[in-house]
């Protein structure tokens, strides 16, 4: 059986209806243990004090913000090439999640920045590219909202996602170039990955897994809603014609 079978809406609804509870349960377990472990059972960092606990939200959210866009890119391509509606609806369902993740990374980063760098916001390359990512999400969602006809909207947003991805990469590079050697504050804390001690790393991996599962569960859930909305639309139209 080919993977494309799942692009059939009926098939998707059936499969997702029994996958969904499992993914949700796993996500909840991973998140609860990971966050509890991280929040209650890890020591404070000698330099950052208790603020290090923010890492268990900040890093997974930042990762998911990027991965979500990557997933939207793939599903948009699938729509453009193979015209599977479920695929593009999944992209539509994912966008608000990605935007929320971006916001979480931005907010936790900003809150963390206040004690660490003495400012809520600095035009550090990583921060800046996240802000730009946020704009991409905003534009993508606004375009979905603005176009009335669903297939037209699907095509347009998919093209936007493609072109946007190229420009998002370009922006990332441009921002690195722009702020090279101007800002020192960031290097202090952001490049510590190698130094993240095991005590912090285990719960971190667990929360990352939890965020991934949470993302999958919510995308499935929201895609189901989108599919139902499309069926509702089709039925209403049919009623009008009859």
């Amino acid at each position, binding site marked *: 059986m080919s993977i494309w079978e799942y692009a059939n809406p009926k098939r998707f609804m059936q499969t997702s209806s029994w996958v969904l509870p499992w993914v949700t349960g796993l996500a909840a377990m991973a998140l609860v243990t990971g966050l509890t472990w991280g929040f209650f059972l890890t020591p404070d960092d000698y330099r950052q004090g208790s603020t290090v606990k923010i890492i268990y939200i900040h890093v997974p959210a930042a990762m998911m913000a990027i991965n979500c866009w990557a997933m939207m890119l793939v599903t948009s391509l699938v729509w453009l090439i193979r015209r599977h*509606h479920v695929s593009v609806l999944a992209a539509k369902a994912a966008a608000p999640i990605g935007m929320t993740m971006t916001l979480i990374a931005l907010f936790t980063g900003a809150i963390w920045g206040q004690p660490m760098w003495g400012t809520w916001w600095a035009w550090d390359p990583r921060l800046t590219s996240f802000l730009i990512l946020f704009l991409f999400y905003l534009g993508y969602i606004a375009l979905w909202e603005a176009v009335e006809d669903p297939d037209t909207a699907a095509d347009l947003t998919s093209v936007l996602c493609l072109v946007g991805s190229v420009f998002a990469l370009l922006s990332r590079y441009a921002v690195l170039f722009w702020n090279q050697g101007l800002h020192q504050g960031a290097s202090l804390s952001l490049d510590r990955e190698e130094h993240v001690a095991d005590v912090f790393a285990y719960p971190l991996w667990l929360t990352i897994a939890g965020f991934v599962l949470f993302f999958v569960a919510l995308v499935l859930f929201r895609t189901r809603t989108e599919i139902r909305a*499309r069926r509702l639309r*089709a039925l209403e*139209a*049919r009623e009008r*014609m009859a």
Partner: protein
Amino acid sequence: MLKVRDLGVSRGGISILDGINLMLAPGAALVLTGPNGIGKTTLLRTIAGLQPAAVGTVELPPEGLAYAGHTDGLKATLTVAENLTFWARVFGQDRIAPALDAMDIAALADRPAQNLSAGQKRRLGLARLLVTRRRLWLLDEPTVSLDTASVRLFAGAVRSHLAAGGAALMASHIDLGLGDAATTLDLAPYRAKLPVPGQGGGFDEAFE
């Protein structure tokens, strides 16, 4: 010249006309009628290639066609002659004087399009057809706002187009004054039935 086979057209994912078969030989004209909202405009746009067909095929003359819709595509700040010259150039032509004369707007040639009355604008829109030199015309309610004299001018233009081996497919609610030169097709019988599964239209037929 135009061959339409088993065509089905849709708006907003809902199929509205179905099973349309048309043939236009050189010299033939066909007028589409039918109540408001039956899908005349949608059908013409589909044949013109402005929207994809839900099912079926459309065969066009190799050199393309000339389409005229509800709006005339005029630039308000350009004069009549400038508007027309532009369209002539786009279609690789250059003489506009015969078209101006045929539609009796030579006297208005230097007037900006925004200063024309509704009917004068429409006549300019029809003159545009004449400069395209395409053999197949697709016209959507061409005589809206025209007075009786202009309707006659228009009928004359269509007749000579047909005589020169052209063909025309038109949608209209009112008599175009073409008499026997045109046959009429009522679209009402082609209204789409409730969609049968797997026949295009809605997204996987809303998964039945």
